[in-house]
C-alpha cells in the first residue's frame, strides 16, 4: 500500500527542498513508515544510476559556432525598434518584482521569511513575465485610448498622461495581478529605454518619493490621492524623479 507522504513530502525531503520544520515532520513519519524508507533508498539508487550513466549531453562545438556567428551579424536594435506591443509589455512584466518588493514593504511584511518570500515572488513574477500570450495590454500613445482600456480592467481610476513633450513618451498600458490585487502598469519610453509605472490603490496618506535600486534598476515610489505609484527603469534616477514630478503635478 502506498503511503500519502510518498507522493509529496518524500520527494522534497529527498531533494533537500523541505524547510527545517517540514523535514523534521517527515523524519518523524519516516521512523515508523517502512514504505517511505524503502522508497527513499530506491530514489537514491535511481539517482546514482542516472549519474553513472552520464545522460547529460553537452552542446557540440559545431552548435556553439553556429550560435556565435549570427550574434555578430544581428543588430539587436532591430528587435527593439519593432513596434510590437508585447515587447514593451514583456519588459514591463520583467520589472514587476520590484513593484512586488515595494508592495511588501508597503504592507509591512518584514518577518524572518521575508527574503524567502521575496525570492518566491521574484520567481513568480519572472514566470509570468516569460509566458508568451500572458502580456495582455494595449499599445497606444493616446491617453484616452489607454485610459479607456484600463477602465474597468484595473477596478480603479488610473490617471493616464502622455509626457512626450517632456521626453517621456507614453507607449501603452496593461493590468497585472499581484497577490490578488489588480495593478495597473503604464509604459513610458525615455531615450529608447522603457519605464514602467505600477499603480495600485492604497488607503495610506500621500507620501514624498522614496528611491532605491535593485540590481541594475532604480525605482521611485510615492503615494498621492489614495494611489501608490512606483516607477521602475534602468534610466537615470533623475529621469525617474522628473517623471514623478510630471505625474504628481498632473494628477
Amino acid at each position, binding site marked *: 500500500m502506498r503511503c500519502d507522504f510518498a507522493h*509529496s513530502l518524500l*520527494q*522534497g525531503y529527498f531533494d533537500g527542498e523541505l524547510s527545517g520544520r517540514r523535514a523534521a515532520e517527515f523524519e518523524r513519519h519516516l521512523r515508523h513508515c517502512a514504505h517511505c524508507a524503502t522508497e527513499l533508498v530506491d530514489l537514491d539508487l535511481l539517482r546514482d544510476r542516472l549519474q553513472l550513466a552520464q545522460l547529460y549531453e553537452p552542446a*557540440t562545438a559545431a552548435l556553439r559556432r553556429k550560435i*556565435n556567428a549570427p550574434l555578430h551579424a544581428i543588430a539587436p536594435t532591430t528587435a527593439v525598434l519593432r513596434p510590437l506591443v508585447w515587447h514593451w509589455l514583456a519588459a514591463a512584466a520583467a520589472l514587476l518584482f520590484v513593484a512586488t518588493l515595494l508592495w511588501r514593504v508597503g504592507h509591512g511584511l518584514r518577518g524572518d521569511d521575508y527574503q524567502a518570500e521575496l525570492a518566491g515572488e521574484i*520567481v513568480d513574477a519572472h514566470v509570468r513575465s516569460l509566458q508568451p500570450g500572458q502580456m495582455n495590454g494595449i499599445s497606444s500613445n493616446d491617453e484616452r485610448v489607454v485610459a479607456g482600456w484600463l477602465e474597468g480592467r484595473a477596478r480603479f481610476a488610473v490617471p493616464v498622461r502622455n509626457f512626450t513633450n517632456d521626453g517621456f513618451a507614453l507607449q501603452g498600458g496593461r493590468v497585472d495581478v499581484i497577490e490578488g490585487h489588480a495593478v495597473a502598469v503604464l509604459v513610458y519610453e525615455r531615450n529608447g529605454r522603457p519605464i514602467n509605472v505600477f499603480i495600485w490603490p492604497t488607503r495610506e496618506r500621500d507620501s514624498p518619493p522614496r528611491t532605491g535600486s535593485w540590481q541594475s534598476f532604480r525605482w521611485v515610489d510615492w503615494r498621492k490621492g489614495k494611489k501608490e505609484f512606483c516607477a521602475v527603469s534602468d534610466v537615470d534616477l533623475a529621469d525617474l524623479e522628473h517623471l514623478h514630478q510630471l505625474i504628481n503635478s498632473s494628477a
Partner: protein
Amino acid sequence: MNDFDAEDRLRFEQLVLPHVDAAFNLARWLLRSRADAEDVAQEALLRSYRFFRGFHGGDARAWLLQIVRNTCYTWLEKNRPMELNMEFDEELHLQTCATPETLAIAGDDRKRLTMAFETLPPRFREILVLRELEGCSYKEIAAITAIPIGTVMSSLSRARRQLHSALVNSLQGARP
C-alpha cells in the same frame, strides 16, 4: 554599432552563453533527437538574443531554458503533434522493448535509461531532465516549466515513478 549594442552583446555572452550546454541537453531530451535539438537550440538562442532586453537580471539559466522549452514545444506541435498527447503506456513500452533490435541496443545501462526516458511523456521527461541532469531547484523548475511550485513535488513523484516502472519493464522485456 554603438556602445549600447556592444554592451548588450557582452552581457548576453556573459550571462546566457554559459548555458548553451543546458539548452542543448534539454532540447535533446525533449525532442529525442540530436539533430533536431541542434536546430531548435540554435533557434532558441537566437530568439533569446533578440529579446534579451526583455531580460533584466535574475536567473539567466532558467530564463534561457524556458525559451528553449517553449521553442521545443512549438516545434513539436508543428512537426510531431502526436507526441504532445503522448501518455505513458506500459503495454506499448513492453512491446517496444521486446523486439530483438531494441533488446540488442538495451545492452548497456545508458541505453536502457535513455530508452526509458524517451518512453515518458514530454512533461515528465522535462522535469526529470531539469532535476536529475540539470540539478535545478524546485523554484527553477517551476519557473522554467510554468507549473506552480506546489505541484513540482507531485509531478516529480509521478515522473520518477514512471521512469522506475519503464526501467522495470525494460528489464522484464530483456529477459529471455
